[in-house]
């Protein structure tokens, strides 16, 4: 029987495996870089995350808690450009630049924690519902419907209000709202993917249900979750800022929503800087992740992906 060769000569096996995987990754990153909107999103994200990570190097951390705004009682309501306070100060003498930079760190913390909690919960609930089906599916999805029937902002607000104002409670409130989406997405994906013939093929060779789920179903279901998680990295900060804006975070926290909230009173008096800069940061953060998320959605579209 003639052996067919497709394209190149046989390469070193293991290296070839690595190369195939690497090619996939380079192709993906090339797609990301080639698309101008995802590229802008990516640049913004890299900048914002760098700012968050290197915050202690950019400005002197406040002691004892660096997430609290430092107070300079000698310089209240200073406009931008003041020596020592490039972006001005707030009514309480907080340095706006400090708030902007450490706010990025707070935001990164917030979004990472919330997104990872919700993805995990969503994965578990959605997988159980989708893969097992039947009564379990019925019960879990009704539960999800209940959560979905309440507007997310109001729901988050109610939880945060009941639990009392603190950063931890904002995380809890956001997590309680955001997991539902993931449960839905995962369930839908799992139900579609498990009908694929390769799942039957895995059953035929006698693999266990759990391993079929881990090897065949989950890896092929995950793409929309990646997209949604990217979008939510932005959305969480947006809603988080809203919650702290209406006073559900501790006062004095280096958080953009808190700063906007505290600075708004001064806008009518011409002190625009205290809320504008943190507001702008919220906008940039949400925009960056939405740009990247939308780009991912196009690039990771299974229809185009399989053809690569």
């Amino acid at each position: 029987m003639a052996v067919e060769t497709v394209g190149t000569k046989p390469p070193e096996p293991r290296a070839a495996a690595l190369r195939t995987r690497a090619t996939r990754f380079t192709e993906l990153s090339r797609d990301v870089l080639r698309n101008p909107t995802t590229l802008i999103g990516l640049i913004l994200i890299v900048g914002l995350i760098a700012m968050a990570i290197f915050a202690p190097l950019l400005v002197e951390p406040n002691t004892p808690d660096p997430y609290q705004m430092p107070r300079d009682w000698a310089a209240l309501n200073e406009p931008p450009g003041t020596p020592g306070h490039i972006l001005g100060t707030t009514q309480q003498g907080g340095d706006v630049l400090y708030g902007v930079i450490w706010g990025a760190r707070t935001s990164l913390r917030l979004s990472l924690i919330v997104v990872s909690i919700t993805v995990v919960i969503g994965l578990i609930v959605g997988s159980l519902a989708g893969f097992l089906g039947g009564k379990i599916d019925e019960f879990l999805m009704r539960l999800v419907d209940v959560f979905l029937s309440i507007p997310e902002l109001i729901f988050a607000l109610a939880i945060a209000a009941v639990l009392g104002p603190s950063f931890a409670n904002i995380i809890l409130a956001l997590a309680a709202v955001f997991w539902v989406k993931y449960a839905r997405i995962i369930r839908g994906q799992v139900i579609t993917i498990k009908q694929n013939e390769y799942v039957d093929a895995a059953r035929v060779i006698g693999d266990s249900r759990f391993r079929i789920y881990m090897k065949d179903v989950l890896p092929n279901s995950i793409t929309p979750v990646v997209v949604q998680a990217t979008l939510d990295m932005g959305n969480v900060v947006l809603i988080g800022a809203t919650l702290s804006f209406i006073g559900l975070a501790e006062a004095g926290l280096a958080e953009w929503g808190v700063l906007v909230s505290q600075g708004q009173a001064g806008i009518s008096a011409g002190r625009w800087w205290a809320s504008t800069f943190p507001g702008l940061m919220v906008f940039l953060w949400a925009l960056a992740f939405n740009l990247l998320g939308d780009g991912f959605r196009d690039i990771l579209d299974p229809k185009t992906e399989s053809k690569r």
Partner: protein
Amino acid sequence: MTVARAPEPGTTDEAVAVASVVGLKVHFESKAGRVHAVDGVDLDIRDGETLGLVGETGCGKSVTARSFLRLIPMPPGIHAGGSVLFRPHRPCPHCSGVGCPECGDTGRLPTACPRCEGSGCSVCGDTGIETIDLSTLPEAGLRDIRGDRIAMIFQDPAKALNPALTVREQLAEAFYQHRTDEVLSRAEMANTHNVLLRRHASQRSRLIERWLLAMPPLRGQRDRIEDVVDDMVAAALAETQIPNPVKVMERYPHELSGGMKQRVMIAQALACNPDLLIADEPTTALDVTVQARIIELIKELQSRRKSAVLYISHDLSLVRRVCDRVAVMYAGRVVEVGTTDEIFNNPLHPYTRGLLAAIPSRTHLRGKLVAIKGTVPELIDPPPSCRFVDRCSFAVAVCGEEDPLLEETESGHSVACFIHNPPATAGTLPTYATKTS
């Protein structure tokens, strides 16, 4: 060898082709490079004949067919050269398309070239018959031809019919769009100057006009137009042997079986008595007993209407039963054209021979099917050589260096292979005796 079926009027060699594909090239831009999906295809479809276009997946047969109606999305498609010429007919004025001795019962007459009025000029290629280049025609002109002079049947009727419209609405559209005058004259309103009614009969009414038409004075006339169209739809359905067409008209596509949907598609395609019917794998999605009925139906309608049919299929045994002539495509090229008898009884191209030998039949011993080795080549920037060279068991050096052209060997039988058309340069020539591999 059996004698070819008797030539019917209009299928003789002298007959002017109703459509000609001339050096057509359609390429696609892809990440890996430019895919030469159709790379220099020449075809003539003669009036009244059924031309089979066969080939395997990816050979470019569907792309060629879709180029007639410019259904290839551009980009990523690129029209890289050549043209599709079409010579439209018009409904016979003597019988308004019903069929009379004047038009030979076809209901259509050729149209004189508007530029030279039949004396022959460069546009019509000295035939004096109106010739339209479909590849450069503006979109508006193309819309008039689509569904009227050239109709198409698709592989999957479930996807080609609009699920939100009843069968009546789908078919009525064709009449409203292309047969406005006929609708009006049948409704005995041929000379009406009422703009509202005319616009209604060509389905261009706007919301306010529709309200006006629903008012008493116009209502009766509007209903008469609609009754006329309903009759036309029912007649079109009846022609495809749909039982109880009046009932089927009210159904939605999903309420019909696969065979029934394909009949509706055919009725829709033939509604305006087209000059050319393009059937793109019309029975691939159907069961074999249903397929047999659809094939019989297409053959029957074709012999009655004398429309030319371009029948695209991968199923050689089917094509053999349906077509007058067959063109075999491979990797974006036509490699062999001839009458059905010639192609099946005297195949010349090694690819055609391989294809025919690969079909399991009574005489093949098990395990001994003659498979063509290898796979279809990638069509990304192909080198100037025979496209079949890697899979051909007769290939010699010259096959990999030069590109064989489609040349006539016998009357009505052309082939693109150096075995039959030796190249100008000397050297070892391939013959069926030289077996490489």
